[in-house]
């Protein structure tokens, strides 16, 4: 459908329209486009990859079920992020009401990975790989410790590459609020970074 090389890719919204009209293939295309993005986005909010995959699945199920509520003229990406954010909120609400929940530090998972695999990434040398891994672990920890709203804004801006205005539209707040939340997040991360003994950033 959209695989032909040299042709402009079909817009998400167009795929969504085809899906609403009954094309399951269009839905598959949307899943292929967004599965990674949404899973990663949710992962950065809930910091547990297995939970993130579950929430991403719920998100796509909601897209499937509620396809008719997608409003023509709106952006598909905004819609699906909104759904994913709502599922994250539900997840946190549920978690909060459970007694004695310990924050998840998911760095363990990466540790389970064979060292060779880590070293083999991108052909970096062993030392670079180790220091990268260490920095990444500390980063995950630092992001996990950000207040939820700041984490949401910071990750949407940095990793999902949304503008302040797009984020504001998504969260129902002003770009100014987005700016101050992101700045607060950066300040918090900076205070954590000073404790990381790696000097090669910047």
């Amino acid at each position, binding site marked *: 459908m959209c695989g032909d090389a040299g042709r402009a890719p079909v817009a998400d919204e167009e795929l969504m329209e085809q899906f609403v009209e009954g094309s399951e293939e269009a839905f598959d295309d949307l899943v292929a486009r967004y599965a*990674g993005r949404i899973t990663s986005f949710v*992962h950065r909010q809930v910091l547990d990859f297995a939970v993130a*995959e579950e929430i991403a699945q719920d998100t796509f199920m909601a897209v499937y079920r509620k396809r008719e509520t997608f409003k023509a003229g709106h952006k598909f990406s905004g819609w699906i992020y909104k759904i994913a954010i709502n599922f994250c909120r539900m997840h946190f609400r549920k978690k909060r*009401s459970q007694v004695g929940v310990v924050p998840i530090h998911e760095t363990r998972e990466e540790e389970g990975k064979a060292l060779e695999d880590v070293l083999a990434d991108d052909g970096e040398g062993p030392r670079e790989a180790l220091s990268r891994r260490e*920095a990444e672990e500390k980063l995950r920890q630092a992001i996990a410790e950000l207040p939820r709203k700041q984490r949401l804004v910071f990750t949407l*801006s940095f990793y999902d590459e949304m503008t302040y205005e797009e984020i504001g539209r998504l969260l*129902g707040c002003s770009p100014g609020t987005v700016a101050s939340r992101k*700045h607060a997040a*950066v300040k918090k991360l900076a205070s954590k970074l000073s404790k990381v003994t790696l000097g090669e*950033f910047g």
Partner: protein
Amino acid sequence: MEKSLPSARAKDGFSESEVMKMKCKRVQKLLTAFVDGELAPPRAASVSEHLAMCDVCREQAAEVKKVLAWAGTWRDREPSPGFVTRLRARIRSEREAIGLSRKVWIPRARLAFAGVAAASVIFVGGYLVGALFSGRAAVPRGAPLARGAAVVAPKSVTAYPVADSRRLIAGLQRIKMSLGSKLSDASFNELNEVQRALAAGGDSSVNDLAILEELQRAEGLIRQKKFALARGVLDGIETSHPGHPLVEYAQMTKMLASPQAVPGWGLLKSSYAMLLQDTLVNPAEFYNDITSLPAQITEYGWQSIVKSADKLNPLNLFDYIESRILGRSETL
């Protein structure tokens, strides 16, 4: 800062003294947005001029860049290979549940109506009808729905496991207890009626599912802005099933099927549509919600449940709508 600086104008129109007057504190607050390229050009220019002159702020800007570089060490993981297969399986099983095994579905769906009705007594009957149509929000008095009308408890609740009905009754009892003071007398009585109907079993109706489908068809038409057609479908429900409890839904849905130009009406309509849809679009989910209430109470405690119910409360929705109409930005 220094007032004696020469007032040579930079090319963006800012004089040096103006730039220096920008307090470091103010500049530092803007640094993240500056690095992100999110500042308006004149402001960005004055920040960069300030940075050229101020070591402290320049260092802070470098720190922001360092943090962002650090953030760049995060590596995304690919979804597991079975991701799409699992998703497909979920979709398939849901489709089969709705399409093929209707014999299994009907009793469950019917049970869900009890839930729908119960919820509507609480969320719609108690608040929406009472509060909205007494003029709390900007809604025309001549709205199709008669003022004070409320969704009636279904008389048709049969063919469900006894244990489920007990749980439902217990759940409703607890709802009454916790929301007691918030519920109007009428809603309270209606909850009683739902409980009685559940306890007694009542007479069954084969039309529930058909009406539900018609309601959904009408909703679809409304979404396509085919209001006249939608009204036709809704009138059809009324005339062919007089006295059926779900007819009330049809009457309420008509509210959505009239294009009216009142401030906030569109928002109100879409909120109401959302409310309706959440109760009707997936009866199985709703059934699960309501039957798992007692278990949830044990697990989470009443306070958190009431708190989240409070968030779903249409009154909050209307506060939200009002604040949106008034131009305040607020998240729900």
